[in-house]
């Protein structure tokens, strides 16, 4: 009952062009049926994410570990709440990040859980930069 060959094939890596995404905007793409948020973060959002002491977080992880160095403005996360799988809304909540409308979990501008019932940060999917304005997810 595991995924069949065609489902696996359809889950192959995809390329996303980032050039149309302006600063402060974000886009949602689907990969393997999951929504992936790609945020072009503002300076303020990056500073906020880096100012918080890592040890105080429910799921401690530094912002540096969640983005690719040299591309700090880009945050790529799987937009599925780690509580029960709803899709959080971008640019909402108290932490300039994501807010899940189902059970009230709030994530910061680095996609880390800050408040609410979710146990973990929004996962970062495997991805790499193929050029400065293009990433490959998967």
């Amino acid at each position, binding site marked *: *009952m595991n995924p069949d060959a065609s489902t696996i094939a359809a889950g192959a890596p995809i390329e996303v062009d980032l050039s149309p995404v302006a600063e402060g905007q974000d886009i949602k793409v689907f990969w393997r049926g999951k929504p992936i948020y790609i945020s072009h973060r503002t300076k303020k959002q990056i500073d906020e994410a880096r100012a918080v002491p890592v040890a105080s977080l429910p799921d401690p992880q530094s912002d540096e570990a969640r983005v690719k160095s040299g591309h700090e403005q880009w945050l790529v996360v799987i937009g599925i709440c780690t509580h029960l799988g709803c899709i959080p809304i971008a640019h909402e909540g108290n932490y300039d990040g994501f807010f899940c409308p*189902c059970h*009230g979990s709030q994530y910061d501008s680095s996609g880390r859980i800050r408040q609410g019932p*979710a146990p973990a940060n929004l996962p970062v999917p495997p991805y790499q930069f193929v050029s400065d304005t293009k990433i490959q997810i998967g």
Partner: protein
Amino acid sequence: MSGPSDYQPSNPALQWIERRLPIIGLIHSSFVVYPTPRNLNYWWTFGAILSFMLGMQILTGVILAMHYTPHADLAFKSVELLVRDVNYGWLLRNMHACGASMFFFAVYVHMLRGLYYGSYKEPREVLWILGVIIYLLMMATGFMGYVLPWGQMSFWGATVITNLFSAIPYVGESIVTLLWGGYSVGNPTLNRFFSLHYLLPFLIAGVVVLHVWALHVAGQNNPDGVEPKTEKDTVPFTPHATIKDGFGVACFLLLYAWFIFYMPNYLGDADNYIPANPGVTPPHIVPEWYYLPFYAILRSIPNKLAGVIGMFSAIIILCFLPWLDSARTRSSKYRPLAKQFFWIFVVVCILLGYLGAQPPEGIYVIAGRVLTVCYFAYFLIVLPLLSRIETPRPVPNSISEAVLAKSGKAVASIAVALVAAGALFVGTLQDARAEEGGTKPPGNSWSFAGPFGKYDRGALQRGLKVYKEVCSNCHGLSYIAFRNLAEAGGPGYSTAQAAAFASDYKIKDGPNDAGDMFERPGRPADYFPSPFPNEQAARAANGGAAPPDLSLITKARSYGRGFPMFIIDFFSQYQEQGPDYVSAVLQGFEEKVPEGVTIPEGSYYNKYFPGHAIKMPKPLSDGQVTYDDGSPTTVAQYSKDVTTFLMWTAEPHMEARKRLGLQVFVFLILFAFLMYFTKKKVWADSH
């Protein structure tokens, strides 16, 4: 099932069979001469009601499966077309969907009866555990069945529930992938759920056979909890129990028919009339009412894994009940303390159900935690403790002694209280949709409301005109065919008029022999063409918000009625939240934005739209559409007409539903009376 029968059929052919397979003897000894305690009350009829409901669900389900397409792109549409085009498809669907709720309602009564009268105690432990297994199977079946219509709540319910398994350490993620058959809930998930939803009821039927077998070995418990000793304590199953069960089923059918014919969507969620969309989560994900207490337990435990364990233990704990409660007296009738705690427990369950439908914030979370503790305390502290400290009242020596001492009981008042409690419980669902930041729409007097409601033909025809001239520029009506305009219960056009109406439209057809698509005039069998080729085009042309298809809009929109209105609605048959909302939104545009509300660029202020910022500009203005019949050409009249028309598109067979409902009610009431008097006659010598 109680040992070798001495039954001998008189017919030689039956004798021939009986010598080779003693099946008639088995039925005879199990369901005819089987001794049943003579003091059983009406709570004992729920066993027969449940068997009846299982049969009903399997029968309607098998027929529904003949018309259903288990594919992510087609499932939603196939259910809608089933309701619209299959002969009595609406009836089948209502029977099956409401049947699931009634099945659970009956099983909860049945379980609470067992709890109250100590039916799980020695020697009925295996019987009880088999019952818990049936209940678990029912929950799985009900959940998977709810996924099949592939609406928003189906999809997101499936997502939330399958994600529960991801809480299991190490293997959780692989289990979830296995359940999905992919990387998220999708077509493979729907296919396997359909397969399992078809399989599980037959497993339930198998376990039910074991359950009845175990029952007939141990014998039925009874309200006094003393075992039958002499023949005076029992009566033969047929005709006594048969006719009493028949009367119980007839009364139950009245409640069932109330939902089927008059309140088919009362127990459902409006969001499930929106096709599944993996990109949008509904604001409140609420399971069906029968899971709400367990959902509340899940949410009130702050740790994810602990929450899942808590939820499952809330059910599994029932298996250990025979050993947790070691009191020697079975029936709570003779246990003054246990009786009080039982009712407290019932209230705790209902309140948990209420909380399960509320948003998980503030006071609701705290109350949920307190009640979760109460729930488990009942099993783990109260029952073990009571069995040690409680002094029960003396039990009668025998059943016949109890029957002689028995005073008249107010069964009717209990039944009424039960129905009210049930309504309160299920109605909590309605509450979940409240508080979304919109003003409540004002009520209207609709011609189609109430048990005898009919569509106003004039309003339907005018509404069609408004739709055609205004709404259809942006909104599709994709489930409605031109032929529907000529069907009974609709706008009342003739077949020729519908054909003429259709021929005004250009329909894309093809490919032709040259392989090209071409346009031709519409035929009655064609569906209303949508204004945009796909959702993306609709979105792009309308500033990012796709105008929804209007076929189902009056059923797909609702608003919270709040306590206590939802209880009153159950009796008054108020079902018009959707039309009230649609008509209110059409009239709710205001030029002047009130203070404190900011409306983004490209949106408009609407008083009744949740959040108030709507992308649709004010669609109607006075005098915009001309009417031939002299009706006022005002926005209020347009809204009323088009809403009536859209109610018809959402439920074209509503008049047939209400008409058949009346006939069924007349029959059922007469039938119930006949059953009651037959029962009285049969039992005349036994009380």
